[in-house]
């Protein structure tokens, strides 16, 4: 395993999490971009050392093709869902002219209620 790869995965996850922790949906989406790269690098590193492109031509020492296939699938799936999230941001803009994620109204109401009752 390559330490650099493992560290790169960590860096991407850190950066991704930081962005996902924001309130602006665009940044959240960008964060997921990083986060999924990080996850994919975990898979890649799990495949072991670097190797030749897995094309059957008699050579030995190929990279693990299974992790590549899994990463490919994961990339596509994440892409689909991220695009959907962007569409939500778009719709949010249509409705509120912004892409901030507001708090849940009912939850806030109950929180206020609890504070009021507590004070009584």
């Amino acid at each position, binding site marked *: *395993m*390559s*330490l*650099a*790869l*493992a*560290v790169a995965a*960590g*860096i*991407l*996850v850190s*950066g*991704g*999490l*930081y962005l996902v*922790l924001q*309130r602006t949906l*665009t*940044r959240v*989406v*960008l964060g997921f*971009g*990083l986060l999924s*790269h990080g996850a994919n690098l975990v898979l*890649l*590193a*799990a*495949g072991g*050392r*670097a190797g030749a492109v897995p*094309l*059957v031509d008699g050579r030995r020492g*190929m*990279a693990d*093709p*299974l992790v590549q*296939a*899994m990463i*490919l*699938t994961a*990339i*596509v*799936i994440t*892409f689909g*869902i991220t*695009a*959907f999230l*962007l*569409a939500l941001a*778009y*719709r949010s*803009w249509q409705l509120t002219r912004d*892409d901030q994620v507001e708090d*849940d*109204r009912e*939850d806030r109401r*109950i929180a206020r*209620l*609890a504070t009021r*009752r507590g004070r009584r």
Partner: protein
Amino acid sequence: MIPALIAWHALVASAAPVLARRLGRRVFLWCALAPAVTLGWIVAVAPKVRAGDPATASIRWVPALGLELGFRMDGFGLLMAGVVAGIGLLVFAYARSYFAGHEHPKLGALGAHLVGFAGAMFGLVTADNVFALFVFWELTAVFSFLLIGFEDTKGSARGAAREALLITSLGGLALLAGLVLLTQAAGRASLAEILASPPRGGTVTAALVLVVVGAATKSAQVPFHSWLPAAMEAPTPVSAYLHSATMVKAGVYLVARFAPAYGATGVWRPLVIGIGLATMLVGGYRALRQHDLKLLLAFGTISQLGFLFVVFGAGTPTATKAGTAVLLAHALFKAALFLVTGIIDHQAHTRDIRRLDGIGRHHRLLAATGIAAAASMAGIPLSFGFVAKELALETWIDGPFAGPGNAAVLAGVVVASMLTVAYSARFVWGAFAAKGAFPGARAVGADMPAPSLAFLAPAALPAAAGVLFGLVPGRIGSLVVDAAAALGSVAAKGPAGAGLELWHGFTPALGLSALVLTGGGVLVAARRRVERLQTDAPSPVGAATGYQRSLEWLNLVADRTTAVLQNGSLPTYVAVVTITVVVVPGAVLVRHLQVPDGLVAAESWVQLAVVGLLAVAVGALVRIHRRFAAVLLVGAVGFLVAGLFVLQGGADLALTLVLIETLGIVIFVLVLRHLPERFRAPVGRGVVAARAAVAVAGGVFVTGFLLTAGAARTAAPVGEALIDQALPLGGGRNVVNVILTDFRALDTLGEISVLLVAALGIGALVTAGRGRSREEQR
């Protein structure tokens, strides 16, 4: 036969709402068919059962859990079932008249619930499997809930229904826990078998306490009694049936069953008798204060239930016999009293003693019924109540306890009995006496229309029985003795096994009875002063207030907990998920960190360089506040990752990623052109630091975990084997593609399903604001 009878109840109940649409209040006659058939069966099997041959039946339910609909009706069950069916019959006959004059839309439901209750109660007193007993126990609570809430448009009725359900369910849970513990200790779930060879030990003690708590809530014992007066919101036939004669006896029934086996166990008597005494006194005291006849009776019931706890709780043969007699007597006189109250309420439209004036003079038969029943309640000689109470006093004169404990109980019983005499008198006086209306109240009395005979008969019958059994206790006495014998207490049909008698001779019990009557008489004579005393006395925190406070507290706890845990903010949610993921496995991981054997710093200098660039790009990305720049940076990160793929040997991978990133940027740009150019102003420094800390922890966690996991690899990965299979089995040289379209095509099928779904979703969202989509207009 018992399951069939229960099914018959269910059948009658389910037909009732439909029939009510045609029959109106005559539907109660249909309903009466349920207890009538039961009563017939009881009479038929009575000789056999009383001879010591219980009626049994069993339906397997979930044997693995000990859950079985097992029934066993012995002599005591027979008596109880007889009360349930007999009073049921009276109540249905009575209800037909009670609801005259107002065709209530819910009459059918009322009938159905009453019949359902009767079935459940019948099941309860005949169940042998403890879990079957619990099933019926809870069912009675549900029916009680529905019945108390009959007048559901009244807030007070809704509240009362809820209070009854919640308090008895609290006890139900305790009971269930107790029963589970008991069955696990005994290794069996048959009540008769458990009690025949009762298990002992610490767990069993806990189980007994839980069972007693369950019994106490159901039988409205202090401090769980508040639901019973509240339950008087129910129509009077319901009160008479459930809340005096039958359901509230369920707890007493359990105590009666358990006491002979466990009476001598350390915790039992102090607990049960203590609860009972407190209940007797509180109930009697509170009853003296009531102006509403029904509430007076309700508190009287509480007091009597406490009395039953005290008597049955001792568990001695005499006590059990006495308890059985009191139980029967109480069912008879209390049902009669409630029914009388219902008649007054129905005819006079009030049951407030401050308004009732001189009803006794105009309605002699009604008054006679009420007085006879009240006499039995007070334990006046010649009544069945007297016979029963004498027997109960004897229990404590013989004394299961030694020394002062016994005397204390006896003293408590005597005082409570005086209160009973007093409130019985108050009932008679309040309902029937010509006392003139209280100041400010409009009197009702002479003008009250007379009840029909059909209305009165169901009340008069049990009252008359109370007198008859008092005068000639022999026949009924042998029934009581057989019932008590079934509880397993009357080993020898010796002195304790003898029948009930009106005249015992000059015994200490007779002396105590005289004392009770005298004391009660004094209380009655001094009623003005007593009343004033009670009004002036500081009223302690009542159970009703306690219930209200608990509800408020519960709501507050609920609100607070929810406000903290469910704060509605997405960043918080994300942080919680991340922290949990890092901390829970991380706590284990840190103690087992490892590094793989074949770890290299980097595959090549190029890889190292790319990772370095990656770090720079990510670092820039988290700080940037311009949308477009951020998107381009993410694209750059994507290309760098693609570079890592290439270096690792992933050609298809890199190609795909590059294409996806490009497409992603296009989509991003299309969306972002509408959004503000910059992100909102950054939040406070503390928040930023917290976010950064969580994020870094996540990254470190992943790297550390990855290295440790990599160190564990011993076997060759599956991926290598796939390379050899690609050409022969998949017919392709590009192993990755063969895997995707062949070996793991199911993954790909799922993947494209996700794409399709996302595309449809995006379409729906994006076009939502455009009215009908163009496509549809075409």
